[in-house]
């Protein structure tokens, strides 16, 4: 009956209650959608980086990351490649020969990382081949084909089929100059990546280096993200002398950014709930002051102050939960829709590409958020109820009954 009284009391002033419920619903909906977009953005950055070049795991010679000289290739790299391919839960493996060099055109030069690949292998690990804006992915018959990023092409003033000269240091320290023909131009979500990475066939690179096949980096895609830890442990145990790293160790800034998005979401929610706290407190204070006489009568006829306190707390909680439930419901529906349809942020394309994020974001929220949110709403409601309930239990019935 106390529940029934509390619920009916909320609807005494329909307009006021609806305003606060709408405010709560809109505030929560906004923060949920914003949070989901941030987290979708974080997830997009991670997935994009993994698909673009990081893969799930990479193997290097120890300390290669600190000293990326051409001589620091993986000892017996081909054997390692072959072995890793046979491991359980490994989806695909690609060996890369990496050389730091310069790319030159008639008008400009730019520092690049030359990535020597076997295209058929690389296609299974990265998605560069799906990101061509012109040309093809090493299907041309031209000598020394190269695939470069759109950003680099623009910087060097080059287009498809143009000649580009790469210069780099050989294994013996000598400088090597070689002309390549642009067979394809790709564009990823990272403009920084596009201007820094060029792809050539390993056979061409080894011929220019006058070297047997050497592998500086082995990139591995696991079957799923869930099996990543066990594949990581397996490879580490097989090759304790090599550097085995997961994507978040290779690109901690991406991992941190992605994790930060979840923190931002909680922070934003707390800000919204904090603002709502004042709105709800104000509303309930008005509701209590309007009912001074009635509350005085209730205390007079025998309602203990604890029950009065509980009634105000219940009213506040019901008001908050109603708004909260509406906000969560609309939020869930919005997020469910956009998680399939995607949200187009192409108007922010240049900014998002510098972060390596896609322009179509698929919002996502972890399940624990939907569990945490009702708890946060109830805590907010309880805090909101404190002052109005305190006022209510300190009513003097003899004077309250005379209030008009």
């Amino acid at each position, binding site marked *: *009956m*106390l529940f*029934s*009284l509390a619920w*009916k*009391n909320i*609807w*005494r002033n329909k307009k006021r209650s609806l305003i606060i419920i709408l405010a709560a619903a809109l505030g929560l909906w906004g923060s949920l959608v914003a949070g989901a977009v941030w987290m979708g953005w974080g997830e997009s950055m991670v997935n994009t980086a993994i698909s673009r070049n990081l893969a799930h795991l990479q193997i290097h010679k120890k300390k290669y990351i600190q000293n990326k000289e051409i001589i620091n290739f993986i000892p017996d790299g081909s054997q390692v490649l072959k072995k890793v391919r046979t491991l359980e839960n490994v989806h695909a493996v690609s060996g890369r020969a990496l050389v730091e060099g310069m790319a030159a055109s008639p008008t400009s030069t730019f520092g690049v990382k030359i990535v020597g690949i076997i295209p058929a292998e690389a296609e299974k690990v990265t998605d560069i081949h799906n990101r061509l804006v012109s040309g093809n992915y090493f299907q041309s018959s031209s000598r020394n084909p190269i695939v470069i990023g759109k950003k680099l092409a623009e910087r060097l003033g080059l287009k498809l089929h143009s000649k580009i000269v790469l210069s780099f240091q050989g294994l013996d320290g000598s400088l090597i100059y070689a002309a390549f023909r642009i067979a394809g131009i790709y564009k990823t979500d990272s403009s920084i990546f596009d201007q820094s990475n060029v792809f050539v066939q390993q056979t061409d690179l080894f011929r220019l280096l006058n070297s047997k096949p050497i592998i500086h980096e082995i990139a591995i895609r696991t079957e799923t993200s869930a099996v990543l830890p066990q594949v990581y442990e397996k490879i580490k145990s097989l090759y304790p002398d090599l550097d085995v790293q997961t994507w978040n160790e290779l690109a901690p800034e991406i991992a941190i950014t992605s994790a930060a998005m979840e923190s931002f979401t909680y922070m934003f929610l707390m800000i919204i709930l904090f603002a709502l706290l004042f709105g709800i407190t104000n509303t309930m204070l008005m509701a209590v002051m309007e009912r001074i*006489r*009635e509350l005085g*009568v*209730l*205390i*007079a*006829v*025998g*309602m*203990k*102050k*604890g*029950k009065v306190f509980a009634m105000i707390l219940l009213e506040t909680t019901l008001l908050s939960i109603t708004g909260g439930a509406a906000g969560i419901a609309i939020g869930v529906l919005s997020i469910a829709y956009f998680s399939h349809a995607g949200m187009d942020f192409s108007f922010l394309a240049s900014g998002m590409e510098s972060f390596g994020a896609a322009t179509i974001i698929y919002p996502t929220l972890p399940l624990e958020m939907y569990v945490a949110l009702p708890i946060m709403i109830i805590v907010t409601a309880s805090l909101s109820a404190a002052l109005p309930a305190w006022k209510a239990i300190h009513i003097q*019935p*003899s004077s309250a*009954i005379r209030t008009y």
Partner: protein
Amino acid sequence: MPLIKLKNLSKTYNTTAIPVHAVNNVNLQIAKKEFTAIVGPSGSGKTTLLNLIGGLDKPTGGSVFVEERDIATLKANELIDFRLHHIGFVFQAYNLIPVFTAKENVEFIMLLQGISKTERDKKAIELLNAVGLGERIDSRPSQLSGGQQQRVAVARALASRPNFVLADEPTANLDSHTAESLLDLMEQLNKDYEMTFVFSTHDPRVIKRAHRVVTLMDGAIKSDVGGKN
């Protein structure tokens, strides 16, 4: 043994500035089954006296005994509990809970007492029938006339099975016919349920019906007609 005994009862406001002696050294005894009116002009202390008897206010001097128990010594929650189980209230402005029906208003007191739903339902209907509102149990106060609301208030006052009912100006907001009808009801309840009624009033219709009239002037008893004190 008197039901209510007031011994040297006083209530003074503004003790540090200009003191106002709202109730001034009152000695009074009210027995069971009495139908007593406390009368006097505005400012004579009738309402204050009723508040003191009902435990809604604490005296600044003296004692209030209800069935030999000094209620002025009770702690806040004990006093609320005491009112719930021993005292029924009828107010001038009815003071029903507007979101509840007539039946729910009567039931609420029994809910506070911890009575079961089945018994509450039965008792509430019985009381509303006794006050002549058996057909309006599901009506809200806004759907009832002033007289009907006051009848619901009487039923609510009786719901807790109190020792006595305190009625503060119960007919003040009612027209003559409705007031007479309400007084008929209260007299009937006094007879049938042996319920003690103590009124604070300056309504001559109530004074005419009262079996005992205690007149207050400036917080003190001026006269006491018709009862044994």
